[in-house]
C-alpha cells in the first residue's frame, strides 16, 4: 500500500511541478508579421528629409501644446534669403535656408521648464548630428553666452561631419525657448552671422516687466 501512496504523491507532485515550471517560461522571441500600415519615420539619407523626420518625431505630451500656446507670439527680423514656413503645432516659427551647398532649417520652439537642463539638450542636439555626448567641463568650447530679448541665453555651435546645428537656448520666465538651425554643415556655418542677427532681432512676448 505504501508503494501505491508513493506512486500517487509522486504523480501529483511531478504533475504540478511540470505545469508550474514547464509551461510558463517566458523567452525572448523573434518573428515576422505582415507589413503594418502605421506610418513610421525611418531615417532618410537626405539632409532636408532628415530634418522633416526629426521635427515630426517630436512627441507632444498633454500640456505641451497648451504651454506653447500660452507662451505667446514672438517678433523677429529675418534675412531676405530665408524662406518663412508656416508655424505649426508646438513650433512658433519655422524657416528654410537654401544655398548652393545644400539646405538647412531653423525652428523656434518653446517648452515649459528646463526640459532636462542645458547639458541634456546640447547632448540631444549633438546626437542628432552624430557627436558623442559631452561633459559639463566641455561646454565652454561649444557655447557662448548671448543676450536674447533682454535675457541671458546661450548659443551652441555643434559641428558634425555632414550635418551641423547652430542652437540658441533661452530660459525665459519658467519656459525654455529653443532656436535650432540644422542642416548641411557648410550651409549652417555660412548662415552663422545671419543666425546671430536673427537672434538679436528676436523679441519675446514679455508680460512680466
Amino acid at each position, binding site marked *: 500500500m505504501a508503494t501505491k501512496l508513493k506512486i*500517487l504523491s509522486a504523480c501529483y507532485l511531478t504533475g504540478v511541478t511540470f505545469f508550474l515550471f514547464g509551461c510558463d517560461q517566458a523567452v525572448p*522571441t523573434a518573428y515576422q*508579421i*505582415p*507589413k503594418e500600415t502605421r506610418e513610421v519615420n525611418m531615417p532618410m539619407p537626405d539632409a532636408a528629409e532628415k530634418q522633416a523626420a526629426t521635427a515630426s518625431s517630436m*512627441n507632444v505630451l498633454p500640456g505641451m501644446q497648451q504651454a506653447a500656446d500660452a507662451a505667446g507670439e514672438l517678433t523677429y527680423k529675418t534675412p531676405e534669403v530665408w524662406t518663412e514656413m508656416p508655424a505649426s503645432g508646438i513650433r512658433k516659427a519655422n524657416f528654410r535656408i537654401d544655398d548652393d551647398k545644400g539646405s538647412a532649417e531653423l525652428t523656434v520652439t518653446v517648452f515649459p*521648464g528646463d526640459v*532636462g*537642463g542645458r547639458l541634456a539638450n546640447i547632448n540631444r542636439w549633438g546626437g542628432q548630428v552624430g557627436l558623442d555626448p559631452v561633459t559639463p567641463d566641455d561646454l565652454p568650447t561649444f557655447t557662448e553666452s548671448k543676450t536674447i530679448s533682454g535675457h541671458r541665453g546661450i548659443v551652441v555651435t555643434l559641428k558634425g561631419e555632414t550635418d551641423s546645428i547652430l542652437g540658441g537656448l533661452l530660459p525665459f520666465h519658467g519656459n525654455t525657448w529653443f532656436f535650432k538651425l540644422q542642416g548641411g554643415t557648410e550651409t549652417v556655418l555660412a548662415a552663422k552671422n545671419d543666425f546671430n542677427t536673427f537672434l538679436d532681432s528676436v523679441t519675446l512676448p514679455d508680460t512680466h516687466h
Partner: protein
Amino acid sequence: MNPIFKFFASLRLTVVLLAFSMMLIFFGTLAQVETGIWKTQKDYFESFAVVWSVPEQAVLHDALFWLHIPMPGGYLLGGLLFINLIAAHITRFKTTWKKSGIFLVHLGLILLLVGELATDLLSEESQMPVDEGGRSNYSQAFRDNELVLIDRSHPDHDTIHAIPSKLLKPGKTIEAPGTPLSIRTVNYYPNAEIGRATNGQTADSPATQGAAVKMGIVVNPKEEVYSENTINTATAYIEVLSPEGSLGVWLVSNVIDDRFPPQMVSLGEQSWELALRFARHYHPFEVELIDFKHDKYPGTEIPFNYSSEVMVHHNDSSKNQKALIYMNHPLRYEGLTFFQASFANNDKTSIFQVVRNPGWVLPYISVLLMGLGMIVQFGIHFVKFLGKRSA
C-alpha cells in the same frame, strides 16, 4: 492497511476538504472586493496556501485588523481531493456493474479537476479592439508587457524581436534574438506615473536618448494595481548595447504607444523601433468589424443587446468566415474563442476578449460523464426496485 494510505483514502478527509473548499470560496469572494477577480484567483485558487485578513475598506477593519485566517489554497485542496478520490477507488471500490454509475460520476469529477488545472495553467486571455470598418490581426494581453525591437526595413514584412517584461530585471542583460543588439534593464517599474518635469523639478533621469530626453519626462513609481479595468503603466529604463558598446538609455512605457512617434535605435545602416507594450499575439487572420450594435430599451439608457458583426479574413481564404458575436454567442475560430467583452469610442469600437483554452472541452465532457453516471446509477436501482415489486 498502511495508516497514511488509509488517511488519504478516508471519507472523512473528503468531507474536511470539501468544507475547506467552501471556506475558500467564501473568503475568496470577500477578497474580490479589495483586489479584484484576477488577483483573487491567483492568490486563493491558483495557490497552495493563503492568509485572509479583513479588507481595509470593511466596516470592521479597525476592530479586526489583527485577524488573519490561514487556509489551504485551490491547488492544495484540488490536489488532495484528486489523491483522495483515486486512493478511495484503489482501496474501497470494486469495478462491478452495480457500481458503474458511481464510477462514471467519479471519473467525471477527476476530469473536472484536471480540466480546471489545465485551464489555469494553459489558457491565455487577451483583448482585441477593432474599429468599425477596421481590421486587426493581433490581440493584446492586458497585464503582461513585452519589450520589442521592430525592424521595418523589409518592404514585405516587419520583424519583431520581443522580450517578455518578466525578463526585465534591473541590471540584467538579455540578447535581443535575431539582432546584434542586447538590452540591459536599468530599471523596471510594474506601474508608474509618467509626466513632464515641472518648474524647478530637475529631470533626474538615467535616459540619454529618445522621448524622455526630448521632453524631460520624469517617472514616479507606483504600487501595482489589480482591480478590473485598471491598467498598470509598466515603465522601464532600457540601455541598448551594440557589439561596440552602449547606444544609450531609453525610457519606454506602455503609455508611450502608437499615438506617439516611434523611438528609434540605430546601429550603422540598421534601425529598430524600441517600445514597451502590452504583449501581443499575432494571428494568421484578420478580424474586420463590419458593424457594432448597442441597442437600448426605447426611451432609456438600459442596454438590451451588444453585438458585433465580423468578417474573419484568413491567409488561407477558404477559412474566411462571417459571424455575429453577442452575449453567450462567442465565435470559436482556430482554437480561439472571441467573446463580446466591451466597447468604446462612442460605439464605434468593439472590444473582444480572445481566449485560447486548449482544455475548454474537458468540463463539458466531465459534466456529461457525471450526468450519465447518475442516470446509470439511478437506472440500476430503479430496475432493481421494479424487479422486487413484481416478485
